[in-house]
């Protein structure tokens, strides 16, 4: 080897710095590579869901010994942040769950592989009509991994102990009146509900009853200032009447269920949440029902949310079929369902759900019941959140902080929220 002079050493070092900087700007070619040829599968949840899916992946591997799976699990927020980094590096997992605010954002980034005609992807459980309903913009590039709807969840143990019953017909007004009465002089100091206007699915339900959509087909915010203000007003009346936990009691606008679950009668939630949330309070029994509805609620206001997953567009050819097999397993396997249950929602494969139902836990039976009830209703079209809208919940939370701290009126906060979201979408 020739002598390495100081000048040449420093020259090569400088070249190395610039090369690395240029490479990081240009980006690497798509890889999505799992080490030693494994199919990478990414999902989110809590530790119970992590364990359940790891067992399910073992079952998949037992069924397909030629396919190795590399699991990539994360908490919901961490999952999204990691995906951001992986997207930037074009190093996305082969099969991945899609957070609801990011469906169209990821689509715009070209993450999804077209699933039409992929060998090994078994969609035989779905009708042609159903498959059409899965398409986004005419393309079948995502599939639903689970379905759920917004519900009102209530603590039946508290109802029994306090000797009250929920009204049969729940309207927004009757529910508000009930919750205020419940909280007033409650002997155990229980509150009617948490302060929850940040919650996306009930918010969307409220808007749809007014004839508005949270997101429009052409990628805009469908909520009007009046709609947002009416929603927040409903919550503010409860909060000021003492029917909700205070922001201090629930340690923020977005409460932790484990902190407040034992203090409130009712909470708004997604239909699948009861499976995990009930376990935090094993001494209580919970049930759930459809959202309250205004007497003049717009037709078709009910909706069932399809939580989606996809195959990365950069999956190498030799891993497409194994990835498709993994997706098929997620969609059709009774064994997977028996291991993971309904904590992420009911399966979109109704035959699979029927098969699972006799073995479902009591809380899962409640998920199934309300899912079926809502699925049987008239539902007008619902559209995914557009690119740029990913932080809309944070924007809502900031406005709610201003309201609850007396720094802004509801109309001003609603107006600011709408402007901020529209600005973010426009800037995307």
């Amino acid at each position, binding site marked *: 080897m020739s002598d390495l002079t100081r000048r040449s*050493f420093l020259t090569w*070092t400088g070249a190395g710095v610039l090369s*690395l*900087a240029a490479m990081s700007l240009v980006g690497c070619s798509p890889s999505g590579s799992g080490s030693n040829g494994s199919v990478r599968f990414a999902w989110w949840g809590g530790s119970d869901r992590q364990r359940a899916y790891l067992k399910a992946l073992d079952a998949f591997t037992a069924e397909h010994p030629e396919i190795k799976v590399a699991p990539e699990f994360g908490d919901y927020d961490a999952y999204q942040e990691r995906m*951001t980094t992986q997207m930037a590096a074009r190093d996305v997992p082969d099969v991945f769950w899609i957070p609801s605010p990011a469906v169209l954002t990821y689509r715009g980034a070209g993450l999804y592989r077209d699933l039409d005609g992929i060998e090994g992807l078994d969609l035989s459980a779905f009708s042609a009509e159903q498959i059409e309903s899965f398409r986004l913009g005419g393309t079948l590039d995502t599939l639903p991994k689970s379905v759920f709807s917004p519900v009102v969840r209530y603590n039946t143990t508290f109802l029994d102990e306090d000797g009250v019953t929920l009204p049969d017909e729940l309207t927004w007004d009757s529910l508000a009146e009930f919750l205020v009465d419940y909280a007033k002089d409650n002997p155990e100091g229980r509150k009617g509900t948490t302060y929850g206007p940040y919650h996306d699915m009930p918010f969307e339900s409220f808007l749809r009853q007014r004839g508005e959509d949270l997101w429009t087909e052409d990628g805009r915010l469908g909520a009007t200032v009046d709609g947002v203000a009416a929603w927040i007003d409903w919550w503010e009346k409860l909060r000021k009447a003492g029917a909700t936990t205070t*922001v201090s009691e629930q*340690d923020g606008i977005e409460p932790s269920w484990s902190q407040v679950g034992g203090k409130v009668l009712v909470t708004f939630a997604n239909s699948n949440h009861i499976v995990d949330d009930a376990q935090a309070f094993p001494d209580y029994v919970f049930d759930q029902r459809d959202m309250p509805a205004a007497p003049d609620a717009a037709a078709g206001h009910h909706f069932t949310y399809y939580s989606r997953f996809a195959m990365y567009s950069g999956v190498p050819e030799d891993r497409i079929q194994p990835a498709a097999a993994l997706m098929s397993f997620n969609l059709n396997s009774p064994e997977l369902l028996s291991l993971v249950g309904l904590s992420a929602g009911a399966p979109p494969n109704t035959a699979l759900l029927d098969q699972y139902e006799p073995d479902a836990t009591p809380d899962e039976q409640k998920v199934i019941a309300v899912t079926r009830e809502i699925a049987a209703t008239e539902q007008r079209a619902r559209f995914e959140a557009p690119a740029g809208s990913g932080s809309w919940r944070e924007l809502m939370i900031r406005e709610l902080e201003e309201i609850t701290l007396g720094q802004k009126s509801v109309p001003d906060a609603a107006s600011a929220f709408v402007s901020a979201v529209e600005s973010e979408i426009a800037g995307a």
Partner: protein
Amino acid sequence: MAHIFLLPWMIGMIGVTAGPLVASAVLAFTDYDLLSPPQFIGLDNFVRMAGDERFWAAVRVTLVYVLVSVPLQLGFALFLAVVLDKGLRGLSLYRSAFYLPSLLGGSVAIAILWRQIFGEEGLVNHVLGWFGVELGSWLQDPSLALSTLVVLNVWTFGSPMVIFLAGLRQIPEELYEASMIDGAGRVRRFWSITIPLLTPIIFLNLILQMISAFQAFTQAHVVSGGSGGPLDSTLFYTLYIYQRGFVNFDMGYASAMAWVLLLVIAAATAANFIVSRRWVYYGDE
């Protein structure tokens, strides 16, 4: 041959530090959403900062945090160092115990614990309740939330304390003896001997802790749940950089903010060096 031994460090320096540094400097002049190639936009990111309310909120919060927590931390560290310098029995044990928060304080676990301690039913409110003081969650009160982070930073006084302790051991004992002969009391000895001879160490700790405080992130992210709330009262500058880059897919703007932070830290450090000529006493002068 020497250069070959330097190579491992150089590879790390290029790969982990210098390369990304140059890349971020270029990205600061682009519109880059992580999903599509960066688009050159000149100084637009920097111009945008001037009108960005949250940017200025983050600057205010960070400056308050630095200006309050650093002097408090150093003061507390110096006080304990002086106490421990008295030749206590079990000094090693005390030193280790007081140093432990410095190791743990920046961790996620401690930040989570802090949320519990300052929550509505946390330890702090429990103790205050003994004295008839009823408060809500400190973390949901914009006037109190930042103070919890200041307390957390002050709690991690162990590192500057150990450095102060080493500095105190360097002060010649003869000076104290001579001053005692001249009738100087404890306070006079502290202000006229200890402090002047300790100024280089104070200056070192000031620079180190100031730089660290400007870059504080984990504590604010965990304690505020990543939001910087309530009402941006805990929106540290680094947290806002993170939000813009990884939550809002605005990496060009985030890179520009990162470079502004670097320049501010450099300017603050340079200013401290200039001012130090007036108050730092080096024994060989």
